[in-house]
Structures are given as structure tokens and as C-alpha cells.
């Protein structure tokens, strides 16, 4: 019998197709307005989507495969900081997990950690993050830290003789010292975020009138991280949040990111070209997990599908032709052009192949996102392949992941 799977969505601007903003249903002048995002994420929430990832980057062109991404005028441009957008959406939604993209390369790991913990408070336990290394040249130039003042990856980026163009084309990460370093740093950032999330034990705030102590300081721990790329001495400024640790997700389509996911993530997004293509990916992830995994829970695998949904296949083909005529989509994910039923069939096949979930990337927003909410989820539920909402209050628990015990509590228990 086929296992039931979770359905997530990945949201990005006007959608994942570069011509999506030109569709009649598009709202291209609203991409940075609150209402645009509220409408879509609320629709996904009401439909039972388990979480929504929100794309982000620290440069205008973002992380497309287009070499002239920074300068071209025919692409939808302009975005909101994803962590803050997720925080804004938190009080406006009920059940859906909110998973902003966080860049590990230039931002301060401490700020990323406290921002995520705060999102977890504001969403009452529905926070996650998709961590991504952002080591391209434009992002470095935007930050512009003075070399000599800086540590870690900035120095590596500066010292690297590799052409910046490399960052904008698909590359084999293991062949690039620069990108290997960026991924090592991503792993360190994720571990720092987890450690800071653990740094206050659950019962650290005691409000003890007898002794006058607000805090039991023996239950708050400096993280004392001193790594290759950065160091952090203190504990988080944020008490332990509802989920303990926010959900950690990573997108991966080759060895280095597979290993990053296996070692550090709770959920990995993968991009098999069909259900049969899943097996070698899962095999590689399993091998990497056996070697590297430190988390007690099994890595959850979500397969990505980029979807164009119309009432009929003919209409879908027509839409696809129109989009592709205007701009050619370059994507890592399998593209499904068809009806909601076709998308459900694809999900069914992936479910049979053993994924824990799928992440649907609407080619066009809001049109394909609304089709996912209005048609795909109800059909998937009717087909008996949609994981039933177990009613658990947090995103982790809804995904069947237990709340992590703080590593510091664990240490004491062992001692």
C-alpha cells in the first residue's frame, strides 16, 4: 500500500517560470505587497499544505542559472526579505509551516538563529528554514566587508581565483574549493543555529520569588563555537522556542549538498526526473546518512515538482507553449504540465517510490498556487495519498518529528 505523503509548496515572486509575470492572472506590480503573500499563503494554509518555503537571495538576480541575471530588464525583480515575510505571515495563518530561505554565507549566524527562534514564537511552533549557501560574486560585492576586517568565507572568496561566472552556472561543487568551503560554512551555520536554539533549556525561566531569581542560569549555556568560518561565544538572546529547534531544510541535487543534508538537515528537497530517478538519490542520501548523520531522526525526503496546472491538458500545453515562447525555463526540478489530476498522479508515483513528501513549485503565482490549493490537495486527499493532519500544534510534530531535547539537557542526563 502506498504511504501517504505531505504536500508542501515552494513560493517565489511571480512563480518559478521567468515569463510567469506576463500572464493575465499575474499580479506583477504587487510582488512586494503584504496582500499578495497573505492571500496565497492563507489559501495554502486553508487547503492543508504542510509548509511553504519562501525563496530569497541577497542579490537582485537571485540564484537563477542566467548569467546576465543582474542586468536584464525582462525578469520579475524585487523581493522581500523571506524571514521577515514569514514572520509577517505567522499571525495571519493557523497551521501551515513557514520556511524562509536563509543565506548562510554573509549574514551573521547569530542573527539568523534569533530570527528563526522569533519566527517560531510568532507562529507558535511553525518555523523552519531552507538554508542555502550564497557565495556568488554579486552577493559578496553587495555586502562589501573590507578584507582584513573579515574572517572565514569572505577571505576565501577574495582569495579564490575562480571566475565569478562559475557561480551563475550549474557546477560540480566538489570540484570547486570555493563552493566546498561555502557548503562547509553552511553546515557550521546550521549547527550554530541548532546549538543556539538549545542554549536555553526549556525550564530556564524560573521566576522564583523565594530566591529573587528570574532565571536559573545553570540552565542557560554559552555555545562557545569556534569554527573554521566564525565563532560565537554566548547563549541565544531568545529563550527556547516552541519547537525547540526550527525545522532545518536543504535543497540538494549533487553529492556535496546531499552530504550537507544527510549530516545537518531534517528535510531534504530532491529533484528526481521521475519516480525511478528517486532510488539512486535516496541510496546516496542513505549512504551519506550512515556515514555522517548526527540527528537522531531519519532524514525526511521531499521531491520537488514544478507545476503548470490548467483544467485540461490542451489548455496546459497551450499555457506552457506561451510561457516558453516568452522565456525559456531553466530548472533543476521535474516539470509537470497538465491537469490537477496529472499532478496527483505524479505525486502518487513518488509516494509509491517512498518519498515522505512533495514540494510543489507553482510555475505561475498566484494561478498555479491557487490550483494546488483548490484542486491538487483535495484530489490527493480523495485518492488517499495525502497525509492526514494529525492536529499537532507544531510543524515538527505534524511531520512526525519529535521535539528535540536540548543538547545541554542531554549532557546533564548522561552525566
Amino acid at each position, binding site marked *: 500500500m502506498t504511504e501517504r505523503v505531505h504536500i508542501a509548496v515552494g513560493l517565489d515572486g511571480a512563480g518559478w517560470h521567468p515569463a510567469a509575470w506576463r500572464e493575465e492572472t499575474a499580479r506583477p*506590480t504587487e510582488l512586494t505587497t503584504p496582500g499578495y503573500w497573505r492571500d496565497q499563503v492563507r489559501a495554502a494554509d486553508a487547503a492543508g499544505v504542510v509548509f511553504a518555503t519562501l525563496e530569497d537571495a541577497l542579490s537582485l538576480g537571485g540564484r537563477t542559472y542566467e548569467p546576465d541575471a543582474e542586468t536584464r530588464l525582462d525578469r520579475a*525583480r524585487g523581493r522581500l526579505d523571506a524571514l521577515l515575510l514569514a514572520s509577517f505571515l505567522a499571525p495571519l495563518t493557523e497551521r501551515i509551516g513557514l520556511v524562509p530561505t536563509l543565506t548562510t554565507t*554573509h549574514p551573521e549566524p547569530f542573527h539568523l538563529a534569533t530570527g528563526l527562534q522569533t519566527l517560531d514564537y510568532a507562529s507558535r511552533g511553525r518555523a523552519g528554514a531552507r538554508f542555502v549557501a550564497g557565495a556568488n560574486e554579486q552577493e559578496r*560585492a553587495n555586502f562589501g566587508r573590507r578584507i582584513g576586517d573579515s574572517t572565514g568565507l569572505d577571505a576565501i572568496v577574495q582569495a579564490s581565483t575562480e571566475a565569478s561566472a562559475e557561480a551563475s552556472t550549474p557546477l560540480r561543487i566538489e570540484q570547486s574549493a570555493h563552493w566546498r568551503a561555502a557548503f562547509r560554512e553552511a553546515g557550521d551555520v546550521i549547527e550554530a543555529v541548532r546549538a543556539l536554539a538549545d542554549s536555553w533549556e526549556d525550564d530556564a525561566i524560573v521566576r522564583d520569588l523565594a530566591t*529573587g531569581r528570574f532565571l536559573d*542560569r545553570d540552565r542557560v549555556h554559552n555555545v562557545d563555537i569556534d569554527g573554521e568560518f566564525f*565563532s560565537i561565544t554566548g547563549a541565544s538572546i531568545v529563550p527556547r522556542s516552541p519547537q525547540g529547534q526550527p525545522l532545518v531544510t536543504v535543497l540538494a541535487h549533487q553529492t556535496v549538498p546531499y552530504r550537507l543534508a544527510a549530516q545537518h538537515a531534517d528535510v531534504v528537497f530532491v529533484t528526481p526526473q521521475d519516480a525511478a530517478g528517486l532510488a539512486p538519490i535516496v541510496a546516496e542520501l542513505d549512504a551519506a546518512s550512515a556515514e555522517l548523520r548526527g540527528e537522531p531522526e531519519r532524514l525526511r525526503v521531499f521531491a520537488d515538482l514544478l507545476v503548470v496546472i490548467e483544467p485540461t491538458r490542451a489548455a496546459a500545453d497551450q499555457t506552457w507553449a506561451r510561457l516558453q515562447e516568452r522565456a525559456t525555463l531553466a530548472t533543476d526540478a521535474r516539470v509537470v504540465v497538465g491537469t490537477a489530476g496529472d499532478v496527483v498522479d505524479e505525486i502518487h508515483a513518488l509516494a509509491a517510490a517512498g518519498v515522505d513528501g512533495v514540494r510543489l513549485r507553482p510555475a505561475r503565482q498566484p494561478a498555479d498556487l491557487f490550483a494546488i490549493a483548490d484542486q491538487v490537495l483535495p484530489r490527493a486527499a480523495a485518492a488517499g495519498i495525502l497525509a492526514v493532519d494529525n492536529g499537532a500544534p507544531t510543524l515538527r510534530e505534524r511531520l512526525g518529528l519529535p521535539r528535540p531535547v536540548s543538547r545541554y539537557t542531554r549532557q546533564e542526563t548522561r552525566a
Partner: protein
Amino acid sequence: MTRQIHLAAHFPGVNNHTVWTDPTAGSQIDFASFEHFARNAEKGLFDYLFLAEGLRLREHRGRIHDLDVIGRPNTLAILAALAAVTDHIGLVGTLSTTFNEPYELARQLATLDHLSGGRAGWNAVTSSDAFHGANFRRGGYLAHPDRYVRAEQFAEISKALWSSWRDDAIVADATSGEFLRDDAIARVQRTTRLFDIDAVFDVPASPQGRPVIVQAGDSADGRDFATAHADVIFSLHTEFEDAQQFYRDVKGRLAAHGRDEDSLKILPGASFVLGDTDAEARERSREIALAQVRPETAITYLEQIWNRDFSGYDADGPLPDVEPDTGSESAQGFANRHAAIRGRIAQLRELAAAENFSIRDLVIHLTAKHTFVGTPQHVASEIDRYVQQRATDGFTLIGHLSPHGLDEFTERVVPLLQERGSYRTSYDDGETLHDLLGLAPVTAREPVVR
């Protein structure tokens, strides 16, 4: 004409001003507390909600301080969440120019401005110390004299980024396929001793053009920064004559920058205690002060100055008759610091002797004096007097209880301010925080100087 009062609502902080021992005290971290606080401030028609910033937990003698409220949210994330549950009130966060980078912070503040429909503000603060730096990539990397050099350049770069998108940058012409017009976005290039930036901003022009900028430092450098860049000063000057003097000094500097008096608002931090009679208010003020300065709080306060263990001392007794431990380090400036500590202690001894203060009395005098104590009528008339007589443009009010410390101000004082004709009766005076503060809108793109 009656000058209008501007009020900011300061969320209770992580220090002894916030009384957690009160039976009605609530969580300082749950979202419901922030939501309650924001909704009350909006009900009271405050100009903005104000949040401090946490970069590291406070420590006392090498250990995390455990007597006061501690633990707070990330400033930007909580403000973004509050944008979703409020409609009018400004959302102002304290954010360091030392441990942030201009591109990232500018996009976050622009995002907050978009999400809130033009209600974002930034209290720009500096820091340079290694203690906070230990949580960040570069540690305590900034030399102390460079704090305001960096702040100045940071603010200038941020303003350039915020004004780098033309208001009409996005054409989104589906037929032609042109999304951005040509020259839609100005590149921001700055090469200085502290920055080497070649940036293309990725957030379109936000409703206010840029957030309202608040400044809190009181040094000469801080005042210069404020007169050059800030829209609001969060000052410490609450004694009437002192406040008037500060007002004249700061506002007098504006002309040199081509600015008029009303383009910079001065909103000092202020506390208040209300009572049905003045006597009742004074009694309540004393009770609150005793809760704010518990015996162990008073001892800890002195330990911080003396750098000694005073756990055996009685807070209701006299000041310790011992010398401070000024350490054995031979770092530069040691002699100065040594002399400063001794000077400070001599001052405290003199004050305690003159007033016959116990340790606890002294610390109450130093840290728990309430700015306005009296009946609602008295407090309203005092606030109005400060504003009408150009001592301030209003106040940044902080309550002693989280999260409902300002509720009684909204209920009892705000209607009296309104009766006096010097406080708004609705938010009809503006859509944006710039509007609410009576600041000129940032219409024209500010020149991208350098």
C-alpha cells in the same frame, strides 16, 4: 498654535525597571504579550512602538545575570509579525550599525516598510565592544573612535540603497515583456576605509521611501549624527531645564544642515506612576521602586561598580567601606579607568552621606526614579507643559509591567491629553510613520551623494 505631543511605546526591557515579581506580570517573550502591547499602544494612538535590541545576554561578574527579566526576541522578526496585527502604529527597532551590514539591514528595513504599509523605523545605535562582538563574525573588530565613522557611512549607504530604485522602476508591461524600465536602479558604490561596496539593491522603493531614523546616543558624535541623519532623538534628558537646554542645543544645530525645527523630534525615555491622588501615586511609586530594586538588585548594582562580592552585605545598611577591585590588568587606559571608578565611588559615598541613604535607597535614587508621578491630570499637564514649552516633542514611555504596563496610560492619561487639544484623536493625520510624526515625506529621491 498648540504644539502636538508625540508618544512612543517602549516594550519593557531586560533590566530591573521591569517588575517580574508582580502577580500580574506576564511573559516577556510570548507573541501574545507583544500583540497585547502593540494593540494597546495603537488604541492609545501612539506614534510608534519601540523595541530595544539584544546582542548578548547580560552578565554579572562573568555569569549570566539572573535577577531581572532576561530573554527577548529578534527585533526585526517580531516587528514584522506585529505589522500583521496592527494597522496604524509605527514599528521602530533598535539595530546596531556595528554588528549588521548595510545591504542586509537596508533590505530588512525596506521589507518591514513594505509589510507595514509605511510604518517602519530604525533606532540606529553603535557598539564596539568585544563582549557583544564575541557573538559575531568579526568579534570586537571596530576601534572605539570608529563607531560613529561606521554609523555615519552605514546610514549614508543605507539611504543611497533605499533611494536607488526609481519610484516608477517597475513597468511590468506584459505585452512588451519589459518588467523594469531602463535605469530603474542606481548602482551604489562606496569604497571607504570601512566598506568596499558595489551594490545593486533588490527591494523596490518602499512606501515611506526610507524608514524613520531614530538616534539614541548622547555624545557629541551622537548629536552630530542625529542632526545629520535622524528624524527622532530618543534622549535621556527628562529634567525640565536640562531637557529645554538639550532641545535648544540639538535643534540649534539643524539649520546648518538645512533643516527646520520640526524635522527632528526629541522623545526622551520616561516612566510614570498614576494614582487617584498625588499621595496615592507617590505611595505607589515607592512600592514600585522597592520592587524594581530588591535587596539583591541593590547589592548587585554595587558589585558591578566595585567589582567585588558583596553577597554578605545588608542592602538596608550603609555602603561598603572597602576599596573597589580595579583589576590587575595593565591595559592602556587602565589608570584612567581606575581613577574614574574611584571618582564614581567617592560621588556615591557623598550622596549617601548627605541623604542618609542605605544601599537600597541609593540604588533606588539612581535607577528607579519615576519621571511622572501623580494623578492622570497631573501627568497629562506635565507632559503637555514639556511639549508646549519646547523641552521635548513628547516622550518614549515605558511601563514597569510586561505586557500591560502602558494600558492605564492609554485609559486614563490619553483622553486628558486629547481634551487639552495637544494629542491626536484618531490616526487620520497620516498613513505613514513619517506622517504621524509630522515629518515631511521622503518624496524626491534623496541625492545619491559621494
